[in-house]
């Protein structure tokens, strides 16, 4: 407890943003408790009600409560973005460490593939991949993962190249450690912090990319409560019900902002060398 207080005093910014992010996650987890009504129940008599005491954020064209839908949208978006970041970091670290450690043909193949991926404008390829695989949240995550792993693979590779020349690796070898053991116990723990920092600073952007794919119709499909697709559906009612495009966008903005702030302050905590 004393340690925690000392940590909070030393990193006030990070603590505040971590609390905000925890609030965001809590909102997603407790959505069923906080929601005013079921996000999928259509009440036609209540269609297109403006925001008021009954419906805080108003209702959509099917009479669904927008406030409840936005709460449930936090679940969809956060689950997707955490899965995406996890997958990219794991895949990137695995491929990068493999390439850096093995060298030779394996290294060349992995790095040339990554060169080709980088020479593509990422979002266009992600759009095409997600669209062709069929619109769903899972495919949108997969499509963005396909175009985004390269950055992490490059990072992990260059870290591995540095680490493998360290004395402690030589010492581990001399004392008879097997390669899997060295990779797991020495290379991975030393490469992970940099990968984590990069992941934390990217997570806000990735959330925006997922919402963007959904907005274009290549991610979550109606009636799913997802902020991007809610915006896209609400767009049609812009003149009569502007709240339908105001609140989902605001939700994305707030979530992305919290994640960005958290990512930046995490970098400052873990890597004090910068600035």
């Amino acid at each position, binding site marked *: 407890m004393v340690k925690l207080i000392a940590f909070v005093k030393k990193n006030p910014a990070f603590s505040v943003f971590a609390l905000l992010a925890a609030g965001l996650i809590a909102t997603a987890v407790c959505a069923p408790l906080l929601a005013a009504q079921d996000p999928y129940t259509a009440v036609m008599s209540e269609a297109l009600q403006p925001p008021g005491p009954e419906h805080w954020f108003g209702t959509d064209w099917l009479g669904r409560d927008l406030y409840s839908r936005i709460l449930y949208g936090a679940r969809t978006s956060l689950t997707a973005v955490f899965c995406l970041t996890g997958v990219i970091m794991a895949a990137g670290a695995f491929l990068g460490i493999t390439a850096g450690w093995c060298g030779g043909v394996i290294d060349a193949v992995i790095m040339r593939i990554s060169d080709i991926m980088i020479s593509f404008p990422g979002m*266009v390829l992600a759009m095409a991949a997600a669209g062709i695989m069929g619109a769903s949240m899972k495919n949108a995550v997969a499509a963005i993962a396909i175009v985004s792993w390269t950055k992490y693979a490059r990072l992990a590779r260059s870290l591995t190249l540095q680490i493998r020349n360290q004395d402690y690796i030589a010492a581990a070898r001399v004392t008879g450690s097997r390669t899997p053991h060295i990779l797991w116990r020495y290379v991975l723990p030393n490469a992970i912090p940099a990968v984590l920092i990069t992941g934390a600073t990217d997570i806000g952007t990735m959330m925006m990319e997922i919402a963007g794919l959904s907005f274009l119709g290549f991610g979550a499909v109606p009636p799913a409560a997802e902020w991007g697709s809610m915006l896209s559906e609400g767009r049609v009612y812009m003149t009569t019900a502007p709240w339908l495009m105001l609140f989902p966008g605001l939700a994305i903005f707030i979530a992305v902002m919290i994640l960005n702030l958290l990512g930046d302050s995490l970098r400052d905590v873990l890597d004090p060398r910068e600035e």
Partner: protein
Amino acid sequence: MKKHHVPKRLLQTVIVLFGISLLSFGLLYMAPGDPVLAMYEAGGTIPDEKIVNQTREALGLNEPFLVQYGNWLSSCLKGDFGISYSLNRPVGELILSRLWPTLKLAFLSLALMLLVSVPLGMTAAVHKGGIADYIVRFFTFLGVSLPNFWVGLILLYVFAVKLEILPVISSGQGFDRLILPAVTLAFAMTGKYTRQVRAAFLEELNQDYVTGARCRGIPDRVILWRHVLPNAVLPLITLLGLSMGSLLGGTAVAEVIFSYPGLGSLTVDAISSMDYSLIQGCVLWIALIYMLLNLLVDISYAFLDPRLKEEADRQW
């Protein structure tokens, strides 16, 4: 770029070209199940087995992958990108008609972004830690965290629906139709670039030559504009090339919101209607444009930076 560098860069380009074509073509194989069936279903009909097989035969889909790829590539090289079945026109013709509007939009938004972010970043760097710095940093933070499709919708709502000073639909002729899409695209980039400009200026301002110039009594204004600016702007050029990638993706969003007839909205329509030859054509062309722009950036970089020229001279 020195003459000696050209062959190496060209070889690299050829490899990338090969990768681009392979990936564009390979997209077809990502479709779950039968692309021909998906094509008909997207068109709203469920054909019987015989028609599907006939179509497969006609499209050459029963051949092995490499043969199909070879056929596709050779016809692409001849300038034949196939026929778009959803729009019933040659793919090449469709793309060419959409190419210029998208490039116009992309370059206009780039110019707009530079016009805003360079002065802002400079001001923030010069007054580091001051009020101006905090205000600029606050706005860059907003810019980075606001999704561009939402910004586009809000702009559309305020300026086209409520104030009625700009058109709601951006198709057709006229400069006013470019304003909203360009501002939308520039908005998100401005946040990112202002940060970069600020960082680049801060780095340059810490250099010895700045201190030296100050000691010689050169006014700060002259140091900033004559000496620091050219050095700080150079790294931005590489970044500009790289962000063409996200810009070309971003144009898709802006084009869809504002119904602007460009390459991005064409790609989105192609994907939505599962128009395979059009998807392949669009992805291929967008990747080609991106690659060409980056090649241009590399070449111009070597021309603009005298240090690189000297280095190349020494190396060879």
